[in-house]
């Protein structure tokens, strides 16, 4: 027993440090224990990339401001060697970077933090220029007038007029709409038609907020000026829905002028975003932002990496569940951590689609594999063949799902294909050696484990705790180390050895 003492000291140390760090983070940075106590906050990061040519470079990017539903809390930028200024001109904010000379690939980051705030104080500016009358060339003008006439008949005010136009755009059989949309983009057509009707509108860049997304781009949407309310109203030119919601962030005033790079080629801008559960008070947030080693926070990383960590930090929870199910319960799975990877895929595909997809792919894969085993191939070639079969199957399923109108079916591409191929190979060998019953036992065990891991990973409290309290990872590690020492019976063994308990 004495040689185990260092081990238990290590466990104790892990527990103390882990819990200590978590309490520290809770007390000093007032990060709440449960997700309910927080306010939703979005961190959005723009990543500007271009190739400089050795000349002076001037980069101008429109910058977002407080708007209906969102309050801008702070913004920051990271760029090597660039001079930076926030410029506000006629109510239009822009971030400007400049450098005397730069060459090769350049990266500039801009980060803004928005609090989801229904009571955001908005500073509305009326349209800066008078309405420009639009005239199309004769043929299109006729089409435009016909569209307007029809829309006007079916509408009562500006918003319903815009909606009626969008409905005609969406109507595949509408010749006039098709003619118009042939030459200009839908949102531009909408703005032009509204202008012909005397309504001021503009195309603005809008970011759809989805937690943990990376490499996103802006969606063009339309803002309508309403003279009566004195406000701009956001309007979706595809769905025809009007009004702000807390998942749409208007980035600036003009979609065309989102980014302007002078002195560089191949400029590109992409966006990452992350939802954070952080106490609303600005004061607390300032504290968290102050860099501090003891803070052990992954929140100081760029948003793109943070979004990745949100998933990575959940994997230890999955591992803990697998360890528990195997050591304490005694469930047999095919491949130790395959269920965790499947669960990660389920997070993307949603549970039901995920399970159906998994069963279809593995089932069909087993059929293909049984044919391959007749060909008597060597292992590496056989598995490679299975991988290709799985990829083909996933493509076919995605296309079929899309054609049938099941958009969820497209998410099937999130399945880890190599892992699935190995699963198929293992199950197939199992089938030959131990029979179909064992395949059912292990396949069912894997699926059950994956579903349990999925349920834990998607639980709001679990993801809140793992992402905000990195110290808890040490606690999980300590529990796993302890479980590694468990020498008692597995639950399934109680059944297996039951005849022995009855022996006198």
């Amino acid at each position: 027993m004495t040689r185990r003492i260092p081990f238990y000291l290590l466990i104790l140390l892990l527990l103390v440090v882990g819990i200590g760090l978590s309490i520290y983070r809770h007390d000093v940075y007032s990060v709440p224990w449960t997700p309910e106590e927080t306010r939703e906050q979005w961190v959005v990061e723009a990543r500007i990339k271009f190739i400089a040519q050795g000349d002076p470079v001037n980069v101008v990017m429109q910058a977002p401001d407080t708007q209906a539903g969102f309050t801008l809390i702070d913004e920051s930028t990271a760029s090597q060697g660039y001079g930076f200024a926030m410029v506000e001109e006629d109510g239009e904010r822009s971030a400007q970077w400049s450098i005397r000379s730069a060459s090769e690939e350049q990266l500039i980051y801009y980060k803004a933090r928005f609090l989801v705030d229904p009571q955001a104080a908005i500073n509305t500016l009326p349209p800066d220029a008078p309405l420009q009358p639009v005239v199309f060339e004769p043929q299109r003008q006729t089409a435009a007038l016909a569209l307007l006439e029809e829309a006007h008949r079916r509408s009562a005010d500006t918003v319903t007029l815009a909606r009626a136009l969008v409905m005609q755009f969406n109507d595949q059989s509408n010749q006039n709409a098709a003619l118009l949309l042939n030459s200009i983009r839908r949102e531009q057509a909408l703005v032009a038609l509204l202008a012909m009707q005397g309504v001021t509108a503009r195309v603005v860049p809008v970011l759809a907020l989805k937690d943990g997304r990376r490499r996103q781009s802006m969606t063009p949407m339309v803002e309508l000026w309403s003279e009566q309310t004195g406000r701009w109203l956001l309007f979706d030119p595809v769905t025809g829905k009007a009004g702000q919601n807390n998942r749409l962030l208007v980035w600036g005033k003009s979609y065309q002028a989102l980014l302007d790079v002078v002195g560089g080629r191949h400029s590109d801008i992409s966006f990452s975003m992350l939802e954070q559960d952080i106490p609303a008070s600005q004061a607390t947030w300032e504290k968290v932002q102050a860099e501090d080693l003891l803070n052990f926070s992954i929140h100081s990383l760029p948003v793109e990496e943070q979004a990745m960590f949100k998933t990575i930090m959940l994997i230890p929870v999955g591992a803990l569940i697998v360890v528990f199910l195997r050591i304490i319960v005694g469930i047999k799975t095919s491949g130790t951590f395959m269920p965790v990877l499947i669960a990660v895929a389920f997070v993307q595909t949603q549970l039901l689609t995920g399970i159906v997809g998994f069963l279809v792919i593995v089932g069909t894969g087993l059929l293909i594999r049984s044919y391959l085993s007749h060909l008597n191939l060597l292992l590496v070639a056989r598995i490679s063949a299975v991988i290709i079969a799985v990829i083909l199957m996933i493509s076919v399923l995605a296309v079929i799902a899309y054609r049938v109108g099941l958009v969820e079916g497209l998410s099937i591409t999130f399945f880890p294909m190599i892992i699935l191929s190995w699963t198929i190979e293992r199950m197939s060998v199992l089938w030959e050696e131990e029979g179909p019953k064992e395949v059912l036992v292990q396949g069912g065990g894997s699926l059950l484990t994956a579903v349990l891991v999925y349920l834990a990973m998607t639980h709001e409290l679990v993801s809140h705790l793992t992402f905000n309290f990195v110290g808890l990872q040490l606690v999980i590690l300590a529990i796993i180390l302890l479980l590694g020492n468990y020498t008692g019976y597995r639950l399934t063994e109680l059944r297996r050895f039951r005849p022995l308990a009855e022996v006198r």
Partner: protein
Amino acid sequence: MLQANWLQWLRMPSKLSQKGVLGMNQRNHSYIGRYNDRRLYPLVDNKLKTKQIALQAGAKVPELIGVIHNQAEVRQLKKLIPRASGFVIKPAQGSGGKGIMVITHQDDGRFFKPSGAEVSSADLERHVSNILAGLFSLGGKNDVALIESLIEFDDRLLKFSYEGVPDIRVVVFHGFPVMAMMRCSTAASDGKANLHQGAVGVGLDIASGRAVNAVQFDHPIRHHPDTQADLSTLQVDNWTELLQLASSAWEMTRLGYVGTDIVLDKTRGPMILELNARPGLAIQIANACGLLPRLKYIEQQLDSGQLTVLSLQERVSFSQQHFLREACF
């Protein structure tokens, strides 16, 4: 009723540990993990190496006729195989009895399997090529093919097995035989001697080699389901000699917790078929007895420092004295 059931299940762990049943976690952690050095595993995972160390230690093994290491040597197969008698081709690193081809007799270049099916010499060569390519080894590793002489099974035990050679598994702990069982194939197990596939497990008394209990699919039985032989009459002859052979695995491998598989040849007596560094727990069900008390007893004796220098014969007689057991048919 339901409540009573729950209580029964709640009491199960303490009941089992009272009986000294060894669980999978404890086997892995306290026995395999503690006493089996990972470095030594290749000795038992490769049948060719096992055979070499067994021969060095003077233990009897099925006679090795030849080894085919690579594709170029496959053509020499015809020169290697015996002219008239039966033989066995098996992969050195096969798992679960896969890839074993048994030829019982031959007649002028025609070969016959136990079922009577005929095999051509081209079939034999293809089988060897498959073995070399790793078709039967774990993870598809390249392998070598062993050619062994056929085991002539002891007639007296033949009635206890259906379409397959029964083998005797002895769990050896630090050189002490702690528990033994005979695995007899059945129609359900398709001639294989794996208990979870439906083979009959017959627990054998360490002291006498007499059957103490028999199970199929974890349930006690008395008669072999196919041959109807009364399993309680099963008695292995030359038992002490067999235990000594099994226990010599300790001298050969220095693996602390090992399963020795033994077959009985009509003329040459008991021979080591293979060794297993991760022997399963079903032997407890076949014996209706837990392993833990025996393992703990030996650990205790070893810790007190009295048993370390015992010879092979002394170890076996120690086990025979202490692990005596009444039959429970």
